């Protein structure tokens, strides 16, 4: 029986100690009418060998970036993960431990959390970081709640149209039913006009939500947007790409009040969307409104430096309905991965990866745009992602053909942006080689020719 210990003999001994005649008797507190009188309708048990064969057969029905060259992005990225990240994070003492509520036997996790907060602060240029949230999308929602509670405005939030469409959907879900207006400022030309935002922000606005580099890959004018928000007493919430910060200005350097991000790029696998890592950092004065766990330094009774979970009076297990959020778990294991990743990268590694992403994506963009059938949808500068327009407006075929040829060429945008139904988003990480990029371009060129011939 998989992971059970008790042998029939032991069960009898234990029942004798309990004074029960059978295990069945232990369940007598459950009224008979509330019991399931039949076995669950589930497949029979599999031993490890069978289970391995079964999962392997399922895995074989998927094709991933080891099968097809991946130019997909849009919030989840095929960045390189050093082996040391896996080696460390797979230590049982990390992944089979619980939330460090007993600091005496959790200093490993607590120090790792403290170092995570330190690294995130340095990475973002912000004052304080929590110990992580669920993911980049829900982190934005939490940042909005935090903004509302901080500035005591619940009526309106201004969101740039270049924010990840799924993040915006999450904001709709969180706040739509509560009556908050989610005002979306459209992104034309790949970025949002600051003046449009300025026109949208008013005295009721809790915060301005910007993503930079945005969903289309382009930096927004964060400093200007922060000025706009601050002028009306609103906060600026910036969602950023952690791997861009080796070369791009940090949220803290551009006036952001709360910086949030999807942290998957920092050493976590794509695993079909999760679990990931919600990063949140903010200015010092907002810390007591921040959701999630926070680790702080202190000393023990012998005067030794150590770390504990702190500011817990913000949290649900103490404050219940008055908590800053209902969040209980953090993403400890993935915060750990991010810390290890950043420790290994250092400033120079982060700079190098940023440069590679920028240069390789620009090389790819230039090559693709040189094909007759394609053009870049926007002229705005970008970091590692860009939008390609199919002049023959048949994105599904382009992507399907590319897939057949061994390339996940990009993410179709029509689902979220009807006006971009002829466009797809192409992402180029440091893992993509020139040979792979040239392969994609060649494939797209063939698509061009073939379709041309058919036409």
């Amino acid at each position, binding site marked *: 029986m998989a992971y059970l210990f008790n042998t029939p003999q032991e*069960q009898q001994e234990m029942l004798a100690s309990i004074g029960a005649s059978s295990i069945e008797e232990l369940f007598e507190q459950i009224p008979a009418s509330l019991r399931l009188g039949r076995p669950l309708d589930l497949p029979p048990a599999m031993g490890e060998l069978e289970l391995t064969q079964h999962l392997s057969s399922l895995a074989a029905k998927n094709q991933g970036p080891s099968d097809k060259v991946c130019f997909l992005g849009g919030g989840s990225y095929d960045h390189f993960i050093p082996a040391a990240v896996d080696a*460390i994070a797979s230590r049982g*003492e990390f992944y*089979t431990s619980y939330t460090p509520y*007993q600091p*005496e036997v959790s200093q490993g996790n607590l120090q790792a959390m403290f170092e995570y907060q330190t690294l995130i602060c340095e990475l973002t240029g912000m004052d*304080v970081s929590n110990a992580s949230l669920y993911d980049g999308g829900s982190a934005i929602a939490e940042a909005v709640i935090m903004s509302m509670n901080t500035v005591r405005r619940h009526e309106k939030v201004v969101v740039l149209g270049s924010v990840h469409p799924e993040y915006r959907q999450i904001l709709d879900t969180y706040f739509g039913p509560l009556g908050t207006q989610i005002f979306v400022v459209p992104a034309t030309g790949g970025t949002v006009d600051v003046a449009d935002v300025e026109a949208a922000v008013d005295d009721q606005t809790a915060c301005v939500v910007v993503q930079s580099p945005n969903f289309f890959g382009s930096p927004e004018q964060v400093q200007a947007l922060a000025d706009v928000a601050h002028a009306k007493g609103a906060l600026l919430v910036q969602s950023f790409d952690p791997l861009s910060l080796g070369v791009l200005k940090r949220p803290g350097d551009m006036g952001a009040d709360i910086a949030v991000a999807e942290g998957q790029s920092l050493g976590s696998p794509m695993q*079909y969307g999760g679990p990931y890592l919600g990063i949140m950092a903010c200015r010092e004065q907002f810390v007591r409104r921040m959701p999630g766990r926070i680790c702080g330094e202190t000393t023990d009774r012998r005067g030794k430096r150590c770390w504990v979970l702190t500011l817990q009076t913000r949290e649900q297990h103490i404050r219940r309905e008055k908590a800053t959020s209902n969040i209980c778990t953090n993403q400890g294991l993935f915060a750990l991965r991010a810390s290890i990743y950043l420790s290994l990268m250092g*400033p120079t590694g982060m700079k190098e990866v940023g440069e590679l992403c920028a240069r390789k994506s620009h090389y790819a963009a230039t090559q693709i745009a040189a094909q007759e059938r394609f053009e870049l949808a926007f002229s705005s500068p970008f970091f590692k992602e860009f939008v390609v327009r199919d002049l023959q407006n048949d994105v599904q075929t382009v992507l399907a053909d590319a897939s057949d040829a061994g390339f996940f060429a990009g993410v179709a945008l029509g689902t979220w942006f009807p006006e971009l139904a002829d466009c797809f988003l192409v992402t180029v990480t440091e893992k993509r080689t020139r040979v792979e990029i040239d392969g994609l371009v060649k494939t797209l060129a063939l698509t061009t020719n073939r379709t041309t011939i058919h036409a």
Partner: protein
Amino acid sequence: RSTQLLTELSQPGRRAVVMPKCDVPETPLSELLPADALADNPPALPELAEPEVVRHYTNLSTLNMSVDTHYYPLGSCTMKYNPKRNERLASLPGIVDLHPYQPEDSLQGMLQLLFELQQFLTEISGLPAISLQPAAGAHGEWTALMSAAAYFRSIGQENRKLVLSPDSSHGTNPASAQMAGFTAVTVKTVDGAVCMEDLRSKLNDQVAVFMITNPSTLGLFETQMAEIAEAVHAVGGLIYLDGANMNAVLGISRPGDIGADMMHYNPHKTFSGPHGGGGPGAGPICVAEKLAPFLPSPIVVKEGDKYRLDYDRPESIGRVRTFFGNVGVLVRAYCYILSYGPDGLKAVSENAVLNANYLLSKVKHFMPVPHGQRCMHEFVASAAKLKQEKGVTAMDIAKRLLDYGYHAPTVYFPLTVPEAMMIEPTETESKEMLDAFVETLFRITEESADLLHDAPHSTPISRPNEVAAARQPCLRAVCN
């Protein structure tokens, strides 16, 4: 050196990762990106060599207790064994290296897995509809409440603004209610059971949901469950079941069969996903048919031999998380359920309950267990008598256990029991381990108060000053 901070280990010019040479034109970044977007310098992260990063974290890890190294009788947290096979299988390249926006025809194995998991979880819950999207238990609670709100709106009952929960409930229950736009109302418990009188007094046509944890946080099955459900349903309210304690009733009692309209699972508890030092979890929710249309999108559907994501769900509350959800955690749950099968899952609960009752039968002789001679998968002992007699608190006992190599039970929860020690043995511990634990616990109750007040004595640190930490927060090291 192991407790030095990375920032203290840093030396200018050291490095670990070296990226490949650029194989495309090395255009200056100033030609690719606007000057006002570019940083002058990269962030001043610590500069370290790979060997010291590995040694640093390896040594840090050994400062933790964990299921792999210690017994962890932490009530309500279900610190059971995390199967190594699940870690391996969830890390197969064909499982872990999948981008969320891949075309569906390249994901048929993953979608099959998720579809089957949807089926497994609805069968175990007795509730027919499911969303795998929520990222954690609390997230699931909130998602279900948002769905309930949408349901009430759809039937013109926007007026239902109250969410009730017992005083013994997890803090997430009222917090989720508040976040979902409801007003949280507390219902009293008596001897661990819902006070029906208090409940009835608070039931009216403003009530949207009654949230109940069953088995309760006291480790007791709520025997009035049918009565409660009838009363709540009678006023048009819904029952939400907090599934934190599902480990006790797998294959024995199903939330959907006992009156619940909604529930969440904690796969990292019930289905052995590792806790990861605080996360990730996942919070799949199952709901009654009438609530199905309101669940988040997408869900996985099967058409013929093909699996696909269904987004065409016009009444859905929308999306509560990016992408599909915490798939890695769900894969482990899937593996776990298949590893046990129907008989095995029932045996899991039987042995979890057997272990808890065995421990209870031993502990009660020297530490009162106020609520009942029997329990489900956990029980709550009280150190109140010890406190009164010799000033030893539940916290003292908890700390002293650490000296003996046992993780502490959950203390001071639920709030309804003074000096509470909530003990959950789980089914993946042996009788020998339980015996050794009980013997140690007893020995501790015989030890001197002074010794216990200063405990733990053998751990790397002892009794950190938490007040100072909160008063003058130091939340980061100084970099470089």
